[in-house]
């Protein structure tokens, strides 16, 4: 029996049908009934079944003892310790001496109770979330423009639009299902256009009609220029502006002053004038335009202004609130929006109510019946950890997130946690970079085990449902929080017996004293967020709840689009133009740090890889941390593709493999965010990122840190494949990669090896001198290769060389599927290539069907394939999640170019 639940990855919020398999894994497929994805899943979602095993799970509460080690304890002991410590610190230093740092991966109900505990009972607003890192500029922009944190449109708008503008979004990789909906709509109607604004030429650009490789951080110039252009070209919807907005003059003035001349805008943004004007003209002429923006916009010291500069253009042209148009913030986490709904940010209260407003506070406190309510904003993520570092916050409870990896200036986060009196971490995995600093570990339920609701990027509430039993002693986050609250002495307010009761309380709060707009009852406050229609669900109704977009009317009907009536959440009902003054990122590159570091996600991984790193089919696409850079910059920095480089900023450094992806502007480098100390020796890009935040939203400037890149000189490179995980200590550089039947380690070291053979045996843990051990050695060049077999089955192999050009890993990896190696394969083992080259598939392109680059190129050549669809027809590649389709297109172009050369 399949259970309908929701994918725990990006903010698209796809429906998943999941079923537990007897072996502890799970079978998943897309839920055809879910409106977000209609049955489709991206490769990450499709691989969810491979991530639910219990290996590495945190299953029991633990306390760090005097010896510095973690010891398993009973729940009572762990909860008493948390409650007691928090109580003691609050009594001694006041409520603001404690803090909560939570996550967009918590369910709405979990979020609700922890927010209630902090703001209503402890009386501090020191509760912030990792959504601060990806979404908060959009939140701030929405609030400034619309008066409330609201995404006006829905995914359907993207299918109905004539023009889609993707700003700072690599949707093809990061929001694949939404991107496929766009791509499909585009295929069906040729006149639809896609513009991608991104300093990198990402996979998303493969499908674009126009790519604007904008200079990092200059988005406000671009959109101010657009605003001025639209006004000048008469594209303003004057009736809409007059009736429903306010503040055009100042915004326009600012835009014209800074960006009135497209030629100058093009210069500042580093664009061709013709391209810029093409974009402006398309925007001016397409009534149905959707501007989809994401982290490339938000993660900036002027992120909020960027958001408003985009919204300004939509307001000017009246393109909002109607089908096929509007600004559209697309989020990175499955429940970023749900968290915001219940108030999980340090600068909001709950249910879209504000901390600073006494009426709002009264609404919440009276509803809760709580002893107190926080009345001023708490510490936002970056400030919070600075406060911990300075000793102002003495206890922090981290839930479902890994700030030592994900925050900027992450080495300072380490220092802060190291000196923090009490670090509590609720998590599902036992070893994370953050866990190393925790005094109390609390095992939480993971996806598949927990139950509740999430809200996706189009305001759609969906249920996450359990289909697996709770493992070990793990508990739902809300239960843990309620237990601690009770032990802190808050006997009322946390007596929930079932998650359904929390949801109802939340839903009732959204409707509580929620007036119609224009109502002048000063006791009531109008909010778009209103779940009145769900506030009376019984438990059965909650369990059977189908996806619905808020606001949910009393009759249970959802709302796909907001602001159709032109009525906004500001007191006067008008939307606001915001005068956005363009400014460059805070830290400019200089002689010492001449390059600009950009960070982001890759196609097959998610966040710090605690789940996606478990799925073998997700690790093949980009297995190693890398720094993608322009070949000219590489030359200037003295680094070479395939070798290792150190990326250094004023705040920290990391090491990664140099790569020329082809999509990077000279002057910029790109490093993915996923690798932690659990998966690589030194690849936490968070340690490099500058701790600069947007002054309004507090969102860090992840997309712009001045860095230098220098060679990371090593004496040898290598890799090993082994059936067992190895103790990765020793090499100066290592990355661990999970394969189907093996662990792969990429390694490199600064010191030469005296005895390669002995080192290799030690690394692989082979002590038996009579072991079946094959080796190849070219001692004078330092090439060494060995394989270890048991009963003709490969157990491990290791390849070392002074240069990074080692044999391809795919074929060797495939040998781990064989129960017995035949003589031909054995003879080929140490060259790392099959005797018959046709057996080598090349690096993975389609993770879903495991189709390699070489297979695809051969087919393109041999069969004369010219469309991704024809490749799919022949090899299945691209036929499932479709996220490799942009790469298929690239491969077709490459093979054809070779053929014509």
């Amino acid at each position: 029996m399949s259970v309908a639940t929701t994918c725990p990855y990006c903010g698209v919020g796809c429906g998943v049908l999941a079923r537990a398999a007897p072996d502890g894994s799970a079978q998943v497929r897309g839920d055809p009934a879910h409106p977000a994805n209609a049955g489709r899943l991206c490769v990450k979602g499709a691989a969810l079944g491979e991530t639910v095993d219990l290996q590495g799970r945190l299953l029991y509460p633990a306390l760090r003892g005097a010896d510095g080690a973690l010891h398993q304890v009973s729940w009572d002991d762990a909860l008493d310790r948390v409650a007691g410590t928090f109580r003691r610190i609050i009594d001694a230093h006041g409520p603001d001496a404690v803090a909560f740092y939570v996550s967009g991966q918590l369910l709405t109900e979990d979020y609700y109770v922890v927010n209630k505990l902090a703001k209503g009972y402890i009386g501090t607003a020191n509760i912030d979330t990792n959504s601060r890192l990806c979404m908060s500029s959009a939140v701030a922009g929405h609030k400034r423009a619309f008066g409330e944190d609201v995404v006006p449109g829905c995914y359907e708008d993207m299918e109905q639009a004539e023009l889609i503008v993707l700003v700072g979004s690599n949707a093809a990789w990061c929001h694949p299902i939404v991107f496929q909906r766009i791509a499909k709509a585009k295929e069906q109607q040729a006149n639809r256009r896609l513009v991608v604004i991104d300093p990198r030429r990402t996979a998303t650009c493969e499908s674009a009609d126009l790519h604007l490789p904008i200079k990092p951080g200059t988005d406000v110039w671009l959109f101010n220029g657009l605003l001025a252009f639209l006004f000048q070209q008469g594209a303003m919807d004057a009736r809409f502006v007059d009736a429903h907005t306010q503040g055009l003059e100042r915004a326009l003035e600012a835009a014209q002053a800074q960006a009135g001349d497209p030629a100058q805008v093009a210069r500042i943004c580093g664009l061709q004038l013709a391209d810029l004007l093409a974009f402006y003209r398309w925007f001016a002429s397409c009534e149905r335009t959707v501007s989809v923006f994401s982290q490339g916009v938000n993660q900036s010291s002027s992120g909020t202004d960027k958001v408003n500069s985009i919204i300004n253009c939509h307001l000017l042209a009246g393109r909002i609130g109607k089908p096929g148009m509007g600004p559209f913030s697309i989020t990175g986490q499955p429940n970023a929006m749900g968290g915001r709904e219940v108030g999980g940010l340090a600068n909001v209260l709950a249910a879209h109510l504000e901390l600073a407003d006494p009426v709002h506070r009264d609404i919440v406190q009276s509803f809760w019946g709580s002893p107190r309510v926080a009345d001023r904003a708490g510490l936002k993520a970056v400030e919070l950890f600075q406060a911990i570092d300075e000793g102002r916050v003495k206890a922090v409870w981290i839930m479902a997130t890994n700030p030592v990896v994900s925050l900027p200036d992450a080495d300072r986060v380490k220092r802060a946690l190291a000196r923090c009196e009490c670090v509590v971490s609720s998590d599902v995995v036992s070893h994370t970079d953050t866990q190393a600093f925790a005094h109390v570990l609390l095992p939480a339920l993971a996806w598949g085990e927990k139950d509740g609701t999430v809200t996706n990027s189009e305001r759609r509430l969906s249920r996450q449902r359990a289909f697996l039993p709770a493992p070990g002693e793990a508990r739902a986050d809300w239960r843990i929080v309620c237990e601690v609250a009770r032990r802190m002495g808050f006997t009322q307010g946390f007596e929930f017996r079932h998650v359904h009761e929390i949801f109802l309380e939340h839903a009732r709060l959204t409707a509580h004293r929620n007036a119609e707009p224009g109502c002048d009852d000063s006791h009531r406050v109008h909010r778009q967020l209103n779940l009145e229609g769900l506030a009376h669900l019984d438990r059965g109704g909650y369990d059977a709840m189908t996806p619905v977009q808020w606001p949910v009317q009393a009759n249970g009907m959802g709302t796909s689009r907001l602001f159709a009536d032109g009525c906004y959440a500001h007191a006067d009902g008008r939307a606001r133009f915001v005068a956005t003054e363009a400014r460059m990122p805070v830290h400019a590159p200089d002689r010492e740090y001449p390059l600009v570091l950009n960070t982001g996600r890759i196609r097959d991984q998610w966040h710090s890889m605690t789940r996606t790193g478990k799925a073998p089919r997700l690790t093949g696409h980009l297995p190693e941390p890398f720094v993608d850079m322009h070949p000219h910059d590489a030359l200037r920095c003295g680094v070479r593709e395939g070798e290792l480089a150190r990326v250094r900023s004023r705040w920290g450094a990391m090491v990664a493999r140099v790569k020329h992806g082809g999509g990077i502007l000279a002057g910029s480098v790109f490093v993915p965010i996923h690798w932690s100390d659990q998966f690589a020796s030194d690849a936490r890009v968070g340690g490099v990122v500058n701790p600069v935040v947007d002054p309004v939203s507090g969102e860090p400037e992840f997309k712009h840190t001045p860095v230098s890149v220098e060679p990371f000189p090593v004496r040898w490179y290598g890799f090993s494949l082994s059936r067992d995980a190895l103790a990765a200590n020793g090499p100066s550089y290592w990355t661990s990669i999970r394969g189907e039947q093996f662990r792969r380690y990429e390694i490199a070291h600064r010191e030469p090896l005296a005895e390669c053979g002995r080192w290799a045996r030690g690394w692989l843990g082979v002590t038996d001198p009579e072991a079946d051990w094959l080796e190849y050695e070219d001692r004078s060049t330092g090439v060494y290769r060995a394989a270890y077999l048991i009963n003709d089955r490969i157990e491990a192999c290791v390849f070392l060389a002074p240069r990074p050009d080692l044999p391809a890993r795919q074929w060797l990896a495939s040998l781990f599927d064989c129960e017995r190696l035949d003589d031909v394969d054995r003879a080929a083992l140490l060259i790392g290539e099959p005797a018959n080259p046709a057996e080598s598939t090349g690096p993975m392109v389609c993770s879903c069907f495991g189709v390699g680059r070489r297979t695809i190129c051969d087919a393109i050549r041999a069969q004369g394939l010219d469309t991704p669809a024809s490749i799919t027809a022949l090899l299945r590649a691209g036929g499932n999640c479709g996220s490799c389709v942009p790469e298929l297109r690239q491969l077709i172009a490459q093979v054809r170019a070779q053929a014509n050369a």
Partner: protein
Amino acid sequence: MAGMRTVEELLQLAPGLYDITVFGAEPYGNYNRILLSMMLSGEKSADEIMLHAPPWYAERGIDLHLGDPVVRIDRRRRRVHSSKGVERGYDRLLIATGSRPVVLPLPGSDLPGVIGFRSIDDVEHMLQAAQTCRRAVVIGGGLLGIEAANGLSRRGMQVTLVHRSDVLLNQQIDVQASGMLIRNLQQRGLSLRLNTETASFYGNGRVEGVTFADGSRIDADLVVMAVGVRPDAALAKASGLYCEHGIVVDDTLQTYDPHVYAVGECVQHRRATFGLVAPAWEQALVCASHLARFGHRRYRASRTATKLKVTGIDLYSAGDFIGGAGTEDLVLRDPRRGIYKRLVLKGRQVVGAVLYGDIGDGGWYFDLIQSATDITAMRDRLLFGKHYCQPAADAGAAA
């Protein structure tokens, strides 16, 4: 062998140029000495190793005298005299007397039952002994010694192989390959006494055993001495031709007497003497071209390759397999499968190869050594064989 190959080449190049007379000490036609080991081990019969039987000579008008060695050369008159009193004049004389097994000058080395391993007669002798006797000692851990020991063992004898050094085939392979070879031979039931000096042979009218330098002794009904060969230059020396270790020849295989040529294991070219077949074939070709009066070829000593002819032991070595200063090694070891491969590189070239267990690419490596091919581009693939070094359309870059 070298002599008759020269005759063959000569008949190809200039049929009818000479009237040819062949004298041979053995009572057989020309046979393939390399295959004596196979004859001993029973894998080939005497007929099967024959290269040229008497009718072959008759068909070509060659005057053949078997079992009748030349005993005197009268160079002034240009005539030869055989043991049976045959006398012939010559315009050109070709000496191909080959080599003789070294007989250790030890007490008892003349006892019956102490033999060499050189001819069909030696093999017949051993085969006879194998039928009646049980214990054999083979002295010498070179190619011949190992082949003899293996052959006798296969014939059912208890064989002890005695070698001075602790490395078998120390002229052909390195310590590692030798170790694998030792294990293999032991698994076949051979006893090995390495690092062992032979002191004497004892026996009453016939050999009964061997005494070693350390005083230990071992009983034996047959002793095969395979401690090397020496060019057989006695006849040439007696006729006043200039000889050192062997009959000294120039690059055309001519001796100091312009009417007299010599080929094969009896000659010394520059400083080298020969014990393998490949140089003999090359010498035959060069010599024949001069005898045929084309005179356009020169013999240059080349590196040689060796193969051990023991069924089930694949061993190949070529060139400078010891290496040392200025050389670099590529080594592949798969002990479980009994495979060991080593290439010795100098600069950008392969100069030596030792292959054990998998010798399929031996010939190719030998070509690379001979042609001094620059292997820089395929260095990392070289030891995995020719198959992997063919230029590929897409070399399959790393991931």
